[in-house]
């Protein structure tokens, strides 16, 4: 049996840090592309609005509208794309 490699992650100078949790990634994505109204985002309201925003994003991307941050949604958020917001603001 080979032992699993213990990867050490380093901070590369000049790299734009993308090491973030899935939730941080999703929030940033939904905000950047216009799915979240950034002025009304806090606590419980955030969860509700995030679910709505996720559904909206999933509809736009042709994904199953679960309102959950599932794997296919996360994968979609990691794909290369155009920087123009999907929802006009």
């Amino acid at each position, binding site marked *: 049996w080979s032992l699993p490699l213990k990867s050490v992650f380093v901070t590369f100078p*000049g790299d*734009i840090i993308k090491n973030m949790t899935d939730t941080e990634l999703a929030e940033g994505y939904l905000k950047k*592309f216009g799915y979240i109204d950034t002025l009304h985002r806090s606590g419980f309201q955030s969860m509700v609005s995030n679910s709505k925003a996720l559904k909206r994003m999933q509809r736009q991307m042709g994904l199953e509208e679960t309102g959950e941050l599932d794997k296919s949604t996360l994968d979609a958020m990691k794909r290369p794309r*155009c920087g*123009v917001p999907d929802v006009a603001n």
Partner: protein
Amino acid sequence: YQTFDGDLKWDHRDVTYRILSYTPDMEISLIDEAFARAFKVWSDVAPLTFTRLFDGTADIMISFGRNNHGDPYPFDGKDGLLAHAYPPGEGLQGDAHFDEDEYWTLGTGPAVKTRYGNADGAMCHFPFTFEGKSYSSCTTEGRSDNLPWCATTADYSKDKKFGFCPSELLYTFGGNANGAECVFPFVFLGEEYDSCTTEGRSDGYRWCATTNNFDTDKKYGFCPSRDTAVIGGNSEGEPCHFPFVFLGKKYDSCTSEGRGDGKLWCSTTDSYDDDKKWGFCPDQGYSLFLVAAHEFGHALGLDHSNIRDALMYPMYSYVEDFSLHEDDIEGIQYLYGRKTGPDPTPPQPNTPTTTPYPDPDETDATDGPTTTTTTRPVDPTKDACKLTKFDTITVIEGELHFFKDGYFWKMSNGGDEKVKGPFPVSEKWPALPAVIDSAFENILARKLYFFSGNKTLYWTQFWVYTEQSVLGPRSIEKLGLPNSVQKVEGALQRGKGKVLLFSGENYWRLDEKAQKIDKGYPKYTDLAFGGVPNDAHDVFQYKDHTYFCRDRFYWRMNSRRQVDRVGYVKYDLLKC
């Protein structure tokens, strides 16, 4: 499809664009072509035309930049955001920005166009074999001058076709040195540099001096990226250094160790641990054509679509044989209407009425058919700058002449460089038909040769003017050219009394004095004039350069038969 709020769109159909900056990832001509093709995607289905400007303000200003690049929407390093564009309008609106931290290709890995060598500027063929070894990138193997090269076919040993790859040792782009190569070492602010540097710049572009002292000469250019150069990181444009040491371990190839995102990277010095210099390894890259076509959709007024196969879907995916989705077509036609009829063309004047059969009673049997030309009054508004293609371009009495449908314009060689005309051909050379395919001047003999003919005629004819007296029309068989030649597309004078005549893919050498074609001709144009279009419709000599024109573009060749510029007839020659 979606449009922006208020259906933002251009209020004119002739949309202009200007390329403000280039990425070093690809040869400039490939970038120009990718953008032109991307615009054509839209002009093929909507009544829009796109005109490139080389200065001033265009509707769509195109640029490359990284991170914070001058607008409120910074890019994010390699991958993630690729580009963005603004909907139609004034100022920043309509502009398109591309993330320089991406690796811009044609979508399938390094797109390396060669220079020099013997492959007429062909693209590198990866992988290729050389002396039994396979190469998937340009190499300096087999050379002592450190110039990277590649084969343009799969097997160099068999085909012996090669060209040189982008390198700062061959040329630079942009800057103010007219593409001259870097000179190493060079001095900048008192320091000596042995390679391209980003010092002195905040945008990360690598540059070099093209003399040995920038401080005194101020001559510089940007360094093209080698295909082996890293992307992004803090060493953009530098090659990987193998082996390199990372966390005490030696690596002979790119690795994803140390990263959580699985991206391959390498060190650009022998030790990452010591120097911390790194970048991402080249990959398939993103198709500049596909991304540009998407962004130009925004610049024309289309927002993102939720149809996965539509061009305006927000995510990138590479498709080999691209065609515009019905959703995109409906979107653009909603904004600008349907495209009807052929491409917009300048109004056509009356064409000559031609009697296809010669009258045996009046004509020498070897002479051409009788052609009578219907002239019309000169329209003073007929503007050479609005024409996209000329029947022929030639130099007469030192002035560049542009012929089109019975008229000609001329451009003096002096300082004012302003196009004059139109002048009716029939007033200056009354024997000529409206359409002139080619012309050349024998300065010593003070003779002007004109060629004309097309598919509706049975053969091509020529006329020789000596001041006001004219000989012809005569069949080109008189010159030894076969009567199957439907058009003489261009003429180049070569030494004393020798003229090269071009038609289709061939050219002939005319001995003017003997009025005969030299032995050994025709020859294939592409064998002697590599890198120019095979179907050029104008070929002429001007200011020590040879020009080959196709459509609105020209390819300029220097005396060493190297294409040193591709440009627009309208802007560069007519100075529109």
